[in-house]
């Protein structure tokens, strides 16, 4: 493998392999940013991976009051799934259980896409006949009376079929603290990139997986090649200097959004340097045959 370094950090000549997905976005507003984010965080809980959660979701960016439809602070949430039906189901249940219930919330379309998904159209029946439909400015809204006033919700939001899920990079460091420091820097940088989310806890994955396993029925199992405790026992990808690996996984509205997010994340890790952060950066792939999108690290370096 060709050696490539930036600021003393070794960059593997490899690529992240990602897949085409369906995605939607909504804007949640509330009287304060705290409560807009609370609704969004609740809605995007248990949404780390489509394998076990049905969808992948997280807050994309915060939106200042001057830029939201109703003039209150808000945030944009993105939700990714493999199919339109599953995406609709996840959107509806999460909206109904987590956003409708959150104090002072309102919800608007966050994406103009090739197709539409029901938003307020599926929740309006909660109004039990007292829901109010309003159409103006080319948009359709539902107003549902609730105990703190009204839940205002746009009827539909958009769906994109151009979304990409599974952009990633691996941060290999001398110890767990340094791996986490590097990953946190990367997450902070990627949070600023519009159209890209990191669905795992705080944006970070510690249990990277490989395809399959020794037990029947396991679709994925631990990525033993990157587990430091197994170095020497298995065919390890880790050198003697590496004692912790963390992964950052990125889903994006478009191919470009994922590339921009990876670029921002890599730059942040490289700027932090090897003494305080990662010694080496790698990426996860399946040999290039499964995913349509390949992000070569060497193309995304600062």
């Amino acid at each position, binding site marked *: 493998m060709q050696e490539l370094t930036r600021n003393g950090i070794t960059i593997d000549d490899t690529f992240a392999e990602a897949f085409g997905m369906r995605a939607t976005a909504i804007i949640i507003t509330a009287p304060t940013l705290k409560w807009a984010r609370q609704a969004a965080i609740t809605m995007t809980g248990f949404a780390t991976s489509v394998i076990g959660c049905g969808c992948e979701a997280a807050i994309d960016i915060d939106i200042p009051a001057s830029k939201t439809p109703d003039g209150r602070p808000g945030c944009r949430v993105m939700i990714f799934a493999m199919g339109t039906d599953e995406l609709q189901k996840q959107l509806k249940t999460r909206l109904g259980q987590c956003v409708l219930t959150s104090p002072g919330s309102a919800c608007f379309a966050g994406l103009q896409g090739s197709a539409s998904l029901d938003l307020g159209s599926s929740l309006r029946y909660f109004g039990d*006949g007292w829901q109010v*439909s309003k*159409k103006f400015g080319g948009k359709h809204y539902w107003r549902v009376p609730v105990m703190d006033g009204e839940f205002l919700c746009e009827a539909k939001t958009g769906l994109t079929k151009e979304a990409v899920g599974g952009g990633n990079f691996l941060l290999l460091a001398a110890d767990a603290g340094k791996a986490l420091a590097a990953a946190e820097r990367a997450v902070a940088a990627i949070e600023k990139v519009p159209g890209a989310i990191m669905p795992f806890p705080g944006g970070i994955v510690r249990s990277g997986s490989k395809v399959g396993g020794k037990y029947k029925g396991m679709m994925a199992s631990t990525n033993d090649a990157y587990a430091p405790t197994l170095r020497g026992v298995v065919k390890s990808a880790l050198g003697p200097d590496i004692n912790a690996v963390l992964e950052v996984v990125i889903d994006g509205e478009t191919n470009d959004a994922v590339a921009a997010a990876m670029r921002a994340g890599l730059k942040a890790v490289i700027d932090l340097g090897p003494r305080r952060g990662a010694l080496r950066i790698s990426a996860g792939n399946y040999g290039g045959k499964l995913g349509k999108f390949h992000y070569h690290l060497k193309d995304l370096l600062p």
Partner: protein
Amino acid sequence: MTPLTFTLRNEPEERLDLSGLTPDRLAGMTPAEIAKLRVGTSRRPVAAGDIFKITGTDASNIVFSGGSGRFDRVGTEMTAGRIRVAGDVGARAGRRMAGGLLKIEGKAGVQAGSSMKNGRIEIDGDAGEGVGGPMAGEIHGMSGGLVIVRGKAGDRAGERMRRGIIALLKGCGDHAGLGMIAGTIVATGRVGRYPGHLMKRGSLLFDLKPAELSPTFVDCGRVEIAFPALFDRYLMEEGILDRPLLGPRPFRFGGDNAVLGKGEIMFARG
């Protein structure tokens, strides 16, 4: 291309039916053919060329240079393009309109925007009775689109409307939203007696509390909801108002409880 312009020669001696002079009807016609179109309503065969000097070629952009209270049915059933009237119009301007823009720079007579379906009507002056309302025998009035009256509107504005928005910027007569089925009426300034009488659903949004509110409307108190800010923003973006109408905590009355009772009257100041 220059707008197709109808310049009024003299005040017409009879009421005119101008429903034929719309972008849809005039598309592809030559000036000579247009000049022969009948516009009179009496037994005399009055043609467009007798009343107007006709210039320009772009039938999708029609201008009436000079208006009259005898110009009836301007923009009837138009679906696209624009008509601008530099002057007054008579009855039923924009009736059953389905798209495009009708701009009237003077006053409008009765039933402007009657049963319109879509599109936009702007009236700079006053409008007569029955803005957006139904004709006799029709089950419902306006079913979509936007009417802006920058002057005062007459009685029964938005009668039996189902959808769409009517904005009346210098107040209106009695019974605004009479028998309203749904939709939105915005009014600033003095609103006449019993707005929303027999309304089933829909919103009447005012800056001030109406002087005489029907007793079948009940006080819902001051509401703290997101909708007014969203709608105020729409009104300002559309250039209908230059400052918020309802504000953050409008007063709300629900009604008309003589019928379904799912409508509302909201206003900023009590």
